């Protein structure tokens, strides 16, 4: 029989996270720190609007780009929060989560062989999306000594004449790193000079601590060359609603709409109605959740400090990324043994790129009570490793 599978699909590695999920799922009494979604329920007033839209029988398709009212609210929201303005009619596209927007953006923009700069450690989708769009992923390894931020020099070193898109994943999953306005200005300068585009994944934009979020699209000359991707999953605890959006120059968005139209038709209607309510009346919910995350972040950092576990201080998202290099094993081995011996699920840093090896992604999208239990087990494990090490030595 002929091989049914396309070569370019075969070469794509399945997400390393999936493997952990399968193992963890078969165990009992697992305490997880491995989840990449909020522990909060979607605020009730938002769910209520979704329910209301169903009651009213709003069960039809929307326009391909999404409900006009939602696009207008997104436009207002970005103006209010990021000081960048988009035309709701032509520069905003509602997608099925931020993930779809990433895929569409790459497919709309890449010619075969054009390079996509992907800073890692980062979200697992960029690389396969680039490959599926016939692009060539080029990895930029972010370093802990730079607080996992992208530096101007790293960017300059990675750019070739084939470079088309820079993926800018900040606030970052899994490291929790953010980029300040000043640092983004340096990046923007290079981007403009070298005439490349930016895919700015700002899904965690509402979750920054101590300092606010700056969108690279708000910098002079950058709106024209940035596709800003955001969504409702993290800010409003709406992961299951599958709703995100992309904003950018009309010439790019209109092509993305085309792809979206043929593959998806439109984002879920119920979710779109709920999202309008989220944007209109959700600012306080965000604030409350952010305060809770920030408290847990401080708590975790303190706990790691007490355990003597090296960890750079993250200022965004809801992850910490402690370094486990002192134990002399790979992230995967560490995470497997932690799961086996203490029934604690974490995600090995290597799931987010090779340079994530030596780190763990620990999520604090859990109640303090859950965090305490998990940290207790992690501490036992580390103690055992250190004691064992001493005995052997």
């Amino acid at each position, binding site marked *: 029989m002929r091989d049914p599978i396309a070569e370019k699909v075969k070469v794509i590695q399945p997400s390393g996270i999936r493997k952990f999920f399968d193992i963890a799922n078969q165990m009992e009494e697992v305490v997880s720190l491995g989840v*990449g979604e909020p*522990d909060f329920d979607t605020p009730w007033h938002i769910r209520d609007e979704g329910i209301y839209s169903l009651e009213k029988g709003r069960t039809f398709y929307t326009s391909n780009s999404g409900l006009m009212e939602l696009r207008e609210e997104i436009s207002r929201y970005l103006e209010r929060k990021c000081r960048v303005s988009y035309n709701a009619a032509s520069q905003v596209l509602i997608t099925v989560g931020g993930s779809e927007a990433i895929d569409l953006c790459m497919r709309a923009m890449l010619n075969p062989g054009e390079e996509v700069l992907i800073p890692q450690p980062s979200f697992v989708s960029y690389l396969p999306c680039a490959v599926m769009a016939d692009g060539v992923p080029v990895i930029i390894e972010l370093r802990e000594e730079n607080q996992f931020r992208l530096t101007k020099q790293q960017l300059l070193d990675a750019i070739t004449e084939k470079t088309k898109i820079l993926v800018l994943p900040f606030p970052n999953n899994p490291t929790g790193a953010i980029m300040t306005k000043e640092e983004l200005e340096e990046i923007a300068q290079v981007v403009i000079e070298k005439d490349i585009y930016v895919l700015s994944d700002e899904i965690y934009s509402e979750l920054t601590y101590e300092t606010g979020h700056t969108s690279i699209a708000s910098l002079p000359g950058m709106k024209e060359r940035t596709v800003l991707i955001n969504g409702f999953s993290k800010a409003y605890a709406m992961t299951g609603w599958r709703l995100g959006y992309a904003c950018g120059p009309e010439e790019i968005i209109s092509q993305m709409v085309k792809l979206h139209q043929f593959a998806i038709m439109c984002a879920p209607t119920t979710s779109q109605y709920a999202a309008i309510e989220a944007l209109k009346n959700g600012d306080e919910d965000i604030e409350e959740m952010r*305060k809770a995350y920030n408290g*847990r972040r401080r708590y975790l950092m303190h706990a790691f400090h007490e355990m003597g576990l090296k960890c750079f201080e993250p200022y965004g998202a809801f992850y910490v990324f402690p370094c486990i290099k002192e134990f002399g094993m790979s992230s995967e081995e560490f995470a497997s043994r932690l799961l086996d011996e203490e029934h604690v699920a974490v995600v090995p840093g290597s799931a987010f790129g090779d340079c994530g090896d030596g780190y763990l992604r620990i999520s604090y999208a859990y109640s303090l009570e859950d965090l305490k239990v998990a940290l207790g087990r992690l501490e036992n494990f580390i103690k055992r490793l250190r004691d064992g090490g001493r005995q052997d030595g």
Partner: protein
Amino acid sequence: MREEILTFLEKNSRIDLKELAIILGSDEISIANEISKMEQEKIICGYHTLIDWDKTSKEKTTALIEVRVTPQRGQGFDSIAERIYNYPEVQSVYLISGAYDLLVILEGKTLKEIAGFVSDKLSTLPSVLSTATHFVLKKYKDHGTIFAKKAKDERMLVTP
């Protein structure tokens, strides 16, 4: 800082102060000082326990009573409210806008005991014009806490 401390204490008055200090990015001594100041200023009025009595064998009946009263010259509603809240079986007294004046929350052992309180004590107060008593059949949520809440985390164990 005060409001942040209160937000945590309101949900969990037994929270460890050291832990609270870490969460709020402060130190234990400042937090303890602030709390004791708020106790003195009567901003913090007590540390009670939220109990779902339905799960115990103790019989309890709660009633909400709407009370219409004649306010008194120079004192408004305050003196009649005081007359009412001094009864130990009265849990709460609120002055309410709208169709009636005071909302009295009463806790008794039995329906009969509450009925007795309303007819003998409350209705006979000179400024009370009328009462309407509503018995609580079931408490679903109290002080922001849902009593019958699913505690299970239904998220997948590991997600990107």
